[in-house]
Each structure stands twice: as structure tokens, then as C-alpha cells.
């Protein structure tokens, strides 16, 4: 065991040195990783936007519009190619999930047709509600996921409700609640799109 006698001076000095060294090291690591961390954070959103919109060449992150809806915010990201509006990605949510918030990124073509949908975050049960994620319900044979049924549909003529409630959406097996929440979120996205998405 370290048998160094403790005096106030050597204690204070030791600690000072240790903390200084530690914090300097940390500072450097932080500086070093700052960029990559920010990039990693951004990458997630960008990749979602990339997935749900047709090809674009602007930075949608720079054209954000926030709309307050139902006690939270919905964000609209506009995508352009060669300056032309190719669609709007709407970051939307629903509170009706089986366990808490569900965050989606819904991509609309300028005419309001749903292009693609990506789930950003949810806490639904693995094996049940999480089938709303594309990769979780991907069927190799058909090449489709559960959410494929939304793609290319226009909310004006595709009832965004589960069939049980008289809509056009086939619910995930045994997860009507999650499906309903999903529809709710897409619906909210569409409302937001109608309100602020048109250029």
C-alpha cells in the first residue's frame, strides 16, 4: 500500500496536479471529439431526411421551420434540388404510443404525397410496436415493410386511420395502439405540411 505520509501541502498539490492533468486531458479529448460528435448528431437527422425525401442538394438543416402543435413542436425541413423544391421532411410526433412519445420523419412530395417515413425514436415494445421501424418488419420476399403501405399515398384520399377505426391502414398485428399512434403522427405531419410546408 502506498505509504506516503499525508500533509496538507502534498495533498493539495497532488490533487491540484491530478485534477489539472485530468481536466487538460479531457479538454483535449473534448476538443478532438467535438466535431465528430456534432457530426454524428447531425448525421442521424440528415440521414433520415435523406431517406424520406427524393434526392436533393441543399442543406435542409438550414431551412427549418418549427410549428407548435399539440403542446410540442413539429419541424419542417425543405429539400431542394437545383434550387427547386423537391419535398418537405416533417419531423413529427405522437403521444398516443403504447409507451410514450413516438418521433417520425415523414417526407412529403410537394403535392402532399407521402414519399417515405422513418421512425426517429420510440419506446414501443420490441417485437410488437417496434415493427413500425422499417427494418423490423422488412419482409425479404415482398421487399416491403409494414410502413410501405403509406408510401405513395396522399392523405387526402388515403384515410390515415387503422381499419378497425374505419380507416385504410392495416394495423400491426397485436399493436393497434402503436399503429394508431403512427397514423396520428403522420396525420400531424400532414397538417403541418399543409400549414407551413408549401413554398
Amino acid at each position: 500500500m502506498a505509504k506516503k505520509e499525508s500533509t496538507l501541502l502534498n495533498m493539495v498539490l497532488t490533487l491540484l496536479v491530478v485534477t489539472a492533468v485530468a481536466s487538460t486531458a479531457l479538454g483535449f479529448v473534448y476538443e478532438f471529439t467535438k466535431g465528430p460528435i456534432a457530426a454524428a448528431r447531425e448525421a442521424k437527422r440528415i440521414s433520415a431526411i435523406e431517406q424520406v425525401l427524393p434526392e436533393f442538394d441543399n442543406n435542409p438543416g438550414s431551412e427549418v421551420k418549427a410549428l407548435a402543435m399539440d403542446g410540442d413542436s413539429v419541424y419542417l425541413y425543405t429539400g431542394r434540388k437545383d434550387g427547386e423544391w423537391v419535398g418537405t421532411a416533417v419531423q413529427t410526433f405522437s403521444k398516443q404510443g403504447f409507451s410514450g412519445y413516438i418521433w417520425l420523419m415523414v417526407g412529403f412530395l410537394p403535392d402532399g404525397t407521402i414519399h417515405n417515413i422513418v421512425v426517429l425514436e420510440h419506446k414501443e415494445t420490441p417485437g410488437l410496436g417496434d415493427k413500425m421501424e422499417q427494418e423490423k418488419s422488412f419482409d425479404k420476399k415482398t421487399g416491403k415493410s409494414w410502413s410501405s403501405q403509406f408510401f405513395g399515398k396522399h392523405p387526402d384520399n388515403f384515410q390515415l386511420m387503422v381499419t378497425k377505426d374505419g380507416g385504410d391502414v392495416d394495423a400491426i398485428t397485436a399493436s393497434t395502439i402503436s399503429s394508431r399512434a403512427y397514423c396520428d403522427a403522420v396525420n400531424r405531419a400532414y397538417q403541418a405540411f399543409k400549414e407551413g410546408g408549401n413554398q
Partner: protein
Amino acid sequence: MDKLLRVSYSPHIHGENSVPRLMWGVIASLVPAFVLSVLYFGLGAILVTATSVLSCVLFEYLIQRFIMKVPPTVNDGSAVVTGVLLAFCLPATIPLWLVALGALVAIGVGKMSFGGLGSNPFNPALVGRVFLFISFPVQLTSWPLPMGFKTKLVDAATGATPLGVIKEGLLNNQQVPPLMDDIPSHMQLFYGNMNGSMGEVAAMALLLGFIYMVVKKIIPPVIPLTILGTVFVFTGILWLANPESNADPLFHLLTGGVMLGAIYMATDYVTSPMTKKGMVVFGVGIGVITVLIRRFGSYPEGVQFAILIMNAFVPLINSWFKPKRFGEEVQHG
């Protein structure tokens, strides 16, 4: 004298009750419910019950024989009770391998891990059932329609339980009175003509079993009565306060697992309190939690969870609610 006398402490005589006798009494009282469930759900009911009972008994035997290395005690009948009750809270069309898995969990995890009969703090059948419910919600929430022997074993026409209908509707911002139109009448509910697990549908048969057990002094009626009473009163208050979003108390009593739970699962000796006072507390607890889950939780039905949760309280209840001792307070008559 050539014959040696036996010597032991008093008492030298013993009452007639024995564990197997009590267990078989419970099983006997379950016969009406079984008959009705066969009438409603046909062959599936028989298959599921048989699988469940056989697997429970088999697993208990195997575990005792080969893992715990103690003499098997399957003939005390408790595994049979567990098997029957596990089967009774499953849908009649459930795949049989799931039944066996549930039985394994009920016996292996719920009972034998703790040392077998009398040691388990949680109700084994419910452990099995909740395990299945959480692990396989799809299969566990596909309730066949009661169509007697016409019920197909797989891919049967399924529908929501009456409680499920109400819960769905409420989540969908519908109101209760119109929803009730989709639901069989109270009288039909009493006969058990509804979607649900095989043993829980027929309130009538369960009540019959209850009366049998009380008359035969197998169980004291305290726990079932307090549970049913609490559910009735609590849902009654909610209903009176707001009939639009609450079903009536009778409906709550007749649907779901309340009857089965109150009469058979909450009364399991091993996992329920030992004194009358304790039993009342236990029953009230189950009633309240059941209604809370039914009304405010995600699941349409809450008895199974309520009983398990209150099972966890039983040791505390036992140490807080002691019988009144003779001479505890001086009584000058």
C-alpha cells in the same frame, strides 16, 4: 409383550384434511367451468387443459427427480391445480407448445425455484400466464369466439374480449354506452357467452365452484368476497361519476378474469395472507389495482397483475396483521 408400542407427542388423532384432499377438492370445483368451456370452445379447451396439466405434472416430476434430487411429490395434486388454472386463463386456440412453455415457467420458475409446494411467494399459474402474456402478446390476445365444437384449433375467428372492446374504444375517444351495443348482454356474460380465456368466461360456473369450495370448507370466502366487493364498489363509483367513460360495475364483475382470479388465484393458500384481516387487505388491494389497471393502464385486464403485485405484499401483510391473541387485552366480561 412382543409388539412394540408407538410413541409420539400428542395429539394422537388427526383430522381428515390432507393436502391432496384439498387440491382434489379444488379440482372438483373446477369441473363445471371446464364443462362449460368445452361447450363453448370445443376440442381446443380439452387439448389446452390436458397439455397444461400434463406438462405441469411432468415438469414438476422431472425437476424434483433430476434437478433437485428429492422424492417427487406430484401426487399431492398441487401441480394439477396449477395446470388446470393455467389452462383456464389461456385462449382455447393457443398453440400447445406455448402452453407447455407456460407450464415450464409456472412450475420451474414460479414454484420449484423456491423449493416447491408452499415456498413460492408468487402464484405459479399466474407467473406462467403473465410470462406468456408478456412474451407472446399476439397469441395471448387472440381470443376465439365461443362456437362450441365448431371452434377451429388454428386461425379461428378471433375477436376482442368485452374489456378489450371497451379499452380500445376509450383509447379511441369513444364513449362507453354505444360500445356496449357490441357486447353481449349481462345475462350472456353470466353464462360465459363471450370471447375470453377458456376458464374465465363463465361467471356462473365459477360461482358454482366457489360455493362448493366454501361449503366444503376448502377456502374461507373472505378473499373472493372482498375482491369482488372492491371491484364492484370502485367501478361503481367511477361509473356513477362518469357513465360515459366507465362501464357499469356488474359488467366489470362479469368480464375478464376477475371471477377466476378472485375465486381461484387469489385464494391460493401459499400466496395469500394467513389471517382474516390480512385477507381483507389483500382482497381490497387486488380489487383496487385491478380497476386501476383496467381503467387507467395500457392493458384491458389487470387481475393477473394485481394478484401478482399483492402476492409480493403478502409477507408484509402477514407480519403486520397478526391474529388477535387470547388475553392480549384484559377482558373483564
